[in-house]
């Protein structure tokens, strides 16, 4: 079942002679139960793609639908609610609040979204799986880059989102942790029927993906042949 659909997306920045065509006629579908990997180097447009998919930016042309709902028609407040309730963002950096302990990062969410979050048992299990159980009373500043990233993943999954949008989620992780994160995304997709979209240049995640896309100079193409390699 389709969760996210981007149709004929074009995005331009700037105007006149400095106008840049960042995304070129992108068509993309993310289905529940699948992990989608979008590979591309820096400046290829993958972050712009992610922000448009998550309703943080609007495309110059084309439409974005999440669970059949066109994002264009939503007010800012409705987009906030959508991101809080249906999308789990895993960001590359600055993704945890420095003055909240790991435990409080989750508590903040429950202050705003009071229901339909992970129960304590499932959260404990997830934290155990991510190897961050003992860190719950620590501040982000007391954690390593990898630990921070794993907490950020747990934070994104806490709201039981319909879709996970991850921006370089394994940038600071060693290969062992990359494999764990890849497995978590796989498990999440298969067992909780969640759609996962990961934009990255980390090739170590390829084997955990159902679909591999390549984005280059604003053009996106499906390239599952990379998986075999």
């Amino acid at each position, binding site marked *: 079942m389709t969760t996210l659909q981007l149709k004929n997306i074009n995005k331009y920045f700037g105007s006149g002679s400095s106008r840049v065509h960042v995304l070129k006629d992108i068509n993309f579908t993310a289905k529940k139960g699948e992990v989608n990997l979008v590979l591309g180097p820096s400046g290829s447009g993958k972050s712009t793609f992610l922000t448009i998919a998550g309703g943080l930016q609007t495309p110059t042309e084309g439409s974005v639908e999440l669970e059949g709902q066109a994002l264009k028609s939503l007010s800012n*407040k409705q987009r906030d609610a959508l991101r809080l309730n249906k999308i789990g963002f895993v960001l590359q950096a600055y993704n945890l609040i420095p003055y909240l302990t790991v435990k409080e990062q989750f508590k903040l969410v429950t202050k705003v979204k009071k229901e339909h979050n992970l129960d304590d048992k499932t959260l404990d299990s997830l934290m155990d799986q991510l190897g961050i159980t003992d860190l719950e009373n620590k501040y982000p500043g007391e954690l390593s880059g990898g630990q921070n990233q794993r907490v950020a993943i747990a934070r994104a999954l806490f709201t039981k989102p319909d879709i996970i949008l991850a921006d370089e989620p394994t940038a600071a992780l060693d290969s062992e942790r990359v494999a764990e994160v890849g497995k978590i995304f796989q498990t999440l997709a298969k067992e909780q029927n969640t759609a996962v979209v990961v934009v990255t240049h980390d090739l170590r995640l390829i084997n955990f993906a159902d679909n591999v896309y390549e984005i280059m100079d604003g053009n996106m193409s499906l390239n599952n042949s990379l998986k075999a390699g």
Partner: protein
Amino acid sequence: MFLSLKEIKKEKFRYGLIVAMIVMICYLIFILTSLAMGLSSQNTDAIDSWNMKSIVLDKDSNTSLSQSLITKDQRKNIKLTKNEALIGQASVVAKKSGYAKESSQFLGLSKKQFISKNLVLTSGHKINSNHQIVVDEKFKTDGYKLGDKLNLNSDKTKYTIVGFVKNAKLNIAPVIYGDITAWQSIKNLNGQFTGSAIVSKNANFKANNEQLETYSTSTFISKLPGYSAQNSTFIFMIGFLMVISLIVIAVFLYILTIQKLQNYAVLRAQGIPAKTLVGATISQSIILVIGGLLIGTILTAATALIIPTSIPMSFDIPILSSVGIGLILTGLIGALIPIKLILNVDPVSVIGG
């Protein structure tokens, strides 16, 4: 509130410095206000204790008690009730060998009229003869005691202190209450003059004499020498201090908010509503200002306990509360200034390129 409290808990030193700054501002404003109130009340303590509503003075006295004289002829047709009292004022220097000279305000009273009747003594008794006086407690502070005899100006008569009264000050000088006939003697007046003024508890009291004029208490007080200029100076000082406080607090809160924009961008990307972040910023500002205010109040109260009585300070709770509320509003305004930054924070800025 959750975010604001957690941030204060984590960044104790940073927020401690901000609270310390607010404490200093509160303390300074409270002390200045108390000094202004104290000085102001030293001008009017005696008048306030009479509960008067109006005063009759010589029309040509320029609303000045010391320049006013009421003649017997003028007084003759004025009917004084229990709500009126005649007073005779003279600026005097009280002298006693071995004691400090006291520049004072002598007020001659009639024993049968309300001011004399209503005097509340802290010790001693009211006057029984025209050579007895009741004096402000400033005299006691300077070493004078009941039974001491002193001279007033060059008058050869010795006046005996028979009682002390608290908060009896007029124009910052301690008041000496004596008999109206003693006033005539001190002023070297012949029997032609009966007093300086008639005070009344009735706001509409009229003297029915074209040479005399009735003034409201507030008009009379505003014309006390130096009173308005002194109060205006303090009001401007406190006003400017409040404005400067607003600017300082606003700048601090603005810088704090700018430092947090990256975090707010993350939270906005995660769908945390802008109103939650605005609420956190405002509640944090209010917590900081109220915290500073409480500590500033405690410091002010401690100062009030240890400050020498010779320094005129008056801690008027309603006025200090108003100042406190003013500071909270100042903090609130300071917090509202960077709100636009929070509302416009761009969550895209935290998604890498």
